[in-house]
């Protein structure tokens, strides 16, 4: 191993460890802070199940599930974006590009506007919508496997179609639209154990599956021919990867609403920091995504307490400029 490669390796390990620390810190900050101020020992006692009933409720019923949801959603979206950018060879790819967000958004809106009393079903309906719209995109893009270019075109077309549906609902139920705004902006208010239960199995499949495919994803970067000669079944691998991304994105959008930014920018930031070897990039992006969303959500719900700013807006304001700064420094 040359010296250069060694420093690179060191850099990667440093970044990975740094992110892990950030994530763990983020989790503790998130559980430790909120509208109600609790001391560290009280919080710890509650986590161990030894606190009084009120503290126990606040920590174990409100903060803990919400923190788990933010970590998983952040990791899922960052992974999905990272994957899609790699597989589709498109730096602008994010979960929106394969139709996931539009489908989820339309179905969620139908429930929230037409049947507000059934709003508990929103995550499930959004998931069905996301799977359905992604299914349509898969079908349109299928050519003995998935054709990346057709995938992007079909994704845009399907997103436009479902977007039209959302615009129509906006017009016909303009008096109720306020109730959906918070969901559309993406956020985590009132997320609880039910959402964790929904997220967990799909996230586990998606995260482990994606990371196991990292080496093949690297091969795909070299172009189809070269990847084939390296023994990768290009079509099958690509389909599996896109499917896993769709799964990760679908379940996250269903639970958190239209959370933009994470899927697009976090992978790019990680790429700027540690390069595009997916064996490192994927896990780092997942951890970074989890940490970023958890910290942003903590800030969003504590800064103006009891008011909550939608975390999506918060992340765009902080993340956009930070990304531009990284890009600019890189160009020099």
């Amino acid at each position: 191993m040359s010296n250069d490669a060694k420093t690179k390796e060191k850099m990667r390990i440093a970044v990975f460890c740094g992110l892990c620390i950030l994530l763990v810190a983020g989790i503790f900050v998130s559980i430790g802070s909120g509208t109600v101020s609790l001391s560290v020992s009280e919080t710890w006692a509650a986590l161990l199940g030894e606190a009084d009933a009120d503290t126990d409720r606040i920590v174990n019923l409100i903060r803990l599930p919400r923190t788990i949801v933010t970590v998983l959603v952040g990791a899922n979206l960052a992974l999905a974006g990272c994957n899609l950018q790699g597989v589709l060879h498109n730096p602008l790819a994010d979960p929106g590009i394969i139709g996931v967000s539009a489908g989820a958004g339309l179905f969620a809106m139908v429930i929230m506007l037409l049947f507000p009393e059934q709003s508990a079903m929103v995550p499930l309906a959004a998931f069905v919508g996301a799977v359905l719209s992604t299914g349509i995109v898969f079908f349109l893009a299928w050519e003995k496997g998935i054709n990346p270019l057709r995938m992007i075109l079909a994704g845009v077309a399907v997103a436009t179609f479902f977007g039209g549906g959302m615009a129509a609902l906006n017009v016909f139920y303009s008096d109720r639209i306020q109730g959906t705004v918070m969901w559309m902006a993406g956020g985590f208010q009132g997320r609880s154990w039910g959402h964790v239960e929904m997220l967990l199995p799909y996230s586990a499949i998606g995260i482990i599956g994606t990371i196991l495919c990292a080496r093949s994803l690297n091969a795909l970067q070299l172009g189809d021919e070269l990847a084939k000669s390296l023994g990768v079944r290009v079509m099958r691998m690509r389909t599996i990867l896109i499917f896993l991304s769709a799964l990760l994105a679908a379940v996250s959008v269903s639970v958190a609403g239209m959370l933009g930014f994470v899927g697009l920018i976090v992978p790019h930031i990680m790429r700027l920091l540690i390069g595009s070897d997916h064996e490192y990039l994927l896990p780092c992006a997942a951890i970074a995504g989890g940490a970023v969303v958890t910290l942003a959500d903590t800030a969003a719900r504590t800064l103006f307490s009891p008011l909550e700013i939608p975390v999506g807006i918060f992340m765009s304001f902080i993340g956009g400029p930070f990304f531009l700064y990284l890009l600019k420094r890189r160009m020099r």
Partner: protein
Amino acid sequence: MKKYILLVFVVIIALAGYFLLARGQHKLAANAAVSVTDSTGTKVHIPAEPKRIVFLNASNLEIFTSIGGRAVGRPTSTSYPDDIKESIKDIPEVGMIHAPNLEKIMSLKPDLVVGTNVPFHVMLRKPLEMAGVPLYLNMINSYEDVLKSIDNFGRFAGREKEAAAKRAQIEKEYAALTQDVQKGRGPKVLIIFGSPDSFNMSTKKSFGGDLAERLGAVNIADKAENVKDSSYIPLSMEFVAKENPDVVMLITMGGSKEILEKLRANMRDNAIWHDVNAVKNNRVYQLPPSLFTVNPGTHTIDAMKIMKEYIYGEAK
């Protein structure tokens, strides 16, 4: 490296799983006493005499407060009527209507939470239930709903007498207001909701439309086909020209006398509008936002008085 990374992930997920399984079953028994059905048709077990009620929307809180109830939590809002502003000033806020803060609500240790039928209130039902706190959703979409809510909240507050008095007073004033009108015999009206650039007509399913119907007005929006369940439907100028309303009433967020004058002038100059009876006779009015953009609750009679003046032209 890859193996270790994978290990980290497995550990993270296993941990989450542990917490999920070990701590997921938090079902505290609600101190249930009475079983009631709320506006969404959900059966809710509420304490017979709730002591600590948190309200998530202003309209419900207004009715509760007006009969002498004292809430322990209230929504962050700028649209409280003047007569209760003072008395609720010190009640802690739990976030805006469409973004209630669950942690803040729980910190107030409520034994009942009252909201309305909007997505972010319905979504609170499960987490609140897990904490043993019932959620009662009360919708106020019509005059009848106001009376029903007064009865309900009277029971919640343990102030049935005050509630009955309030109800009797409103019913008396209502009877006086509507004795000289006949349903469906009044002038043709159009109620526009929103800004003049994006028009919506209020149908009888909306609060404003409901009041207009009770005051005998013929709401042209109710003649539109395909109305079904919508409270508001997009405005078609051809439809307005055909139906030719005698009175136009606007419901906008905010707005001043100058804006109304400007709007009237614009309508007179506009070829589409200027042949409409209401515009020709200068009978375009603005309904006060404080009474019509949010539900007026116990001030419904005030809202009706103003609307009646506009419909029958007793105002200048």
